[in-house]
């Protein structure tokens, strides 16, 4: 991956009345990078994407694409192409007319358009469908037409606004693989907006978490999933369990946190945390081990806690246990295998590796 920036967003602000859709957002996206804007609905992802594409004029801040400021350029003058959320295909045009529309506008000769359209249709897997109208295509095929229509212009950046949201789960997984493959083939930067973390993880080189108009944090999918720096990210990504508490003790290797009814010891990963400070702890549901509580084997102090099973659900690859703790907080535990002899209302012991807990400020 090259080090030059395809997109540089500085201090972007957009308001609608009193509501901030974007609050001083900064963002750098590298050349040839597959970048995902991930966050809950109404968080500002689409506003950011549309500001990059020129469909929204921000109140302040700037957008540079390939080192050139594009703040005053309309969408048709920016080196970007957009794939819209709602399959914005032209229903009165055939597949090939849709794909070739951008080239037709550039007054390119018909035979050149036909060749390029044909090559692009092969690339996205639409061979043989050139004469069909959009409504005669499946959802996946319609999305491929949008991709081909955007990619044929060979712009520097492809913007994708929730491109898979209208597809069913299996088709979405297949399209994720295809999108990633396509991005590698064409080699340009993709900026993909989604609220679906699985979709984000499966395509992204890097992910930015956006909520309430703010850039929460950025990182690789592994960083975001395994080591989220912010409490919001920990809550939003994966099936995480969050505990709010107060730091009782800090030493070089561990931190002891009081979560009201229990105390939890976690590994100190050089956190800048002081004794008495309010913190949040997060742990992935698959990092907790659940065992039936036995009289002969009581939980090790600060390294395990007691709970009561309230629900057991078989989810195919996992079994999910809902466990009620002494402080009345319900947490989730996911296990690859069903734990034998555990039933609803059984008392259980929950344990973990110290390093699986993450500490967040506030």
């Amino acid at each position, binding site marked *: 991956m090259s080090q030059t920036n395809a997109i540089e967003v500085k201090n972007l602000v957009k308001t609608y009345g009193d509501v901030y859709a974007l609050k001083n957002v900064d963002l750098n996206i590298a050349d040839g990078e597959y970048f995902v804007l991930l966050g809950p609905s109404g968080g500002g992802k689409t506003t950011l994407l549309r500001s990059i594409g020129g469909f929204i004029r921000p109140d302040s801040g700037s957008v540079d694409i390939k080192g050139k400021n594009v703040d005053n350029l309309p969408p*048709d003058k920016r080196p970007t192409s*957009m794939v*819209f959320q709602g399959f914005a295909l*032209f229903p009165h045009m055939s597949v090939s007319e849709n794909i070739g*529309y951008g080239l037709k506008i*550039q007054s390119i000769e018909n035979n050149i358009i036909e060749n390029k359209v044909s090559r692009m249709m092969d690339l996205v897997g639409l061979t043989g469908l050139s004469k069909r109208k*959009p*409504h005669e295509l*499946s959802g996946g095929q319609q999305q491929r037409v949008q991709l081909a229509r955007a990619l044929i212009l060979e712009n520097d950046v492809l913007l994708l606004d929730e491109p898979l949201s*209208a597809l069913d789960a299996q088709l979405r997984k297949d399209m994720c693989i295809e999108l990633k493959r396509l991005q590698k083939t064409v080699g340009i930067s993709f900026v993909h907006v989604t609220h679906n973390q699985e979709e984000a993880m499966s395509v992204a080189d890097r992910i930015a978490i956006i909520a309430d108009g703010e850039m929460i944090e950025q990182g690789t999918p592994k960083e975001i999933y395994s080591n989220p720096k912010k409490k919001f990210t920990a809550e939003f990504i994966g099936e995480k369990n969050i505990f709010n508490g107060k730091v009782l003790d800090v030493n070089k290797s561990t931190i002891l946190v009081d979560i009201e009814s229990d105390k939890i010891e976690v590994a100190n990963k050089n956190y800048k945390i002081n004794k008495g400070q309010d913190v949040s702890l997060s742990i992935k549901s698959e990092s907790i081990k659940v065992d039936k509580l036995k009289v002969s084997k009581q939980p090790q102090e600060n390294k395990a806690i007691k709970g009561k099973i309230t629900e057991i659900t078989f989810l195919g690859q996992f079994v999910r246990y809902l466990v009620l703790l002494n402080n009345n907080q319900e947490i989730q535990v996911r296990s690859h295998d069903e734990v034998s002899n555990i039933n609803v209302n059984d008392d259980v012991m929950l344990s973990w590796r110290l390093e699986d807990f993450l500490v967040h400020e506030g």
Partner: protein
Amino acid sequence: MSLRDDFQPKWKLALKWGWLSFAVFILMAPTFYTVYISFNELGFGAKYYIFTFQWYESVFSDRQLIGSLGWTMLLAFITLPIVIPFGLMSAKLYKQSTKKVWIVFILLSPLFVPADILGSALLVFFKNLNKFFTMIAEYTGIYALESWFDLGIMTAVIGLIVYTLPYVFVVIMITMARYRVEQTEAARDLGASAWRAFWEVEFPQIRAGVFSACAFVVILTFNEYTRTSLLKGGFDTFTSVLISQMLNTGMSEESYAMASIVSLVAIIIVSIILIVTAVKTDELEKITRAVKEPNK
């Protein structure tokens, strides 16, 4: 068909259709009766019926009637290229605006003013405008605008625009409601100018509504009497001739024939519009559903 209809007894459905047919018959009976009379050689009120085309033949030799038909068509064709873009822009404004109720209220308000009041108000307005431009001409020596608002084609056209714009707006707005703005954005994103995006992407999808609005304008021009009569100046329109003939001498058999021609043409046009719109709406419905639920 809705679930409720599935459980509806057949006799109830038949009753509904029967009622609808009866209502249509009652509404259209006078028109059909006019057509019936227009083919009777002995005319209205005769004891016997002898089929003939002679009244239709004499229509085309009635210079006053043919002349008024020409004036009416001329008014319609001058009004069309003005009111259709107006209606189109208004419908686009409505679609983009967040203050939709106000736009509807403003554009439909001419419909709430009685025709004779609106017509006389326009008449007074134009007369005052003429006085104003005459005064300007006297002071400045510029006579270009002096007789612009003399009663004539222009004032009649303005009256027709005020009358037909609400209908044009509603017809286009209904067709435009199904259009997805993302398509315009997509066209702009692909490099199209605003005009090109409209002409090549949006217009083909709202064409049925625009053509329906055009047909409505022509029909409404024939229909209009009060405003046009007050504002037309020295020429006659088809409706004003028909009504003056009726008031002076009663309806002639030629008038019945001409009224039949106009009615049948209007019915055929409206039927075509309804059928095309229904087919297009059905197509659009399918497309919209296919796009919204592509996996089904």
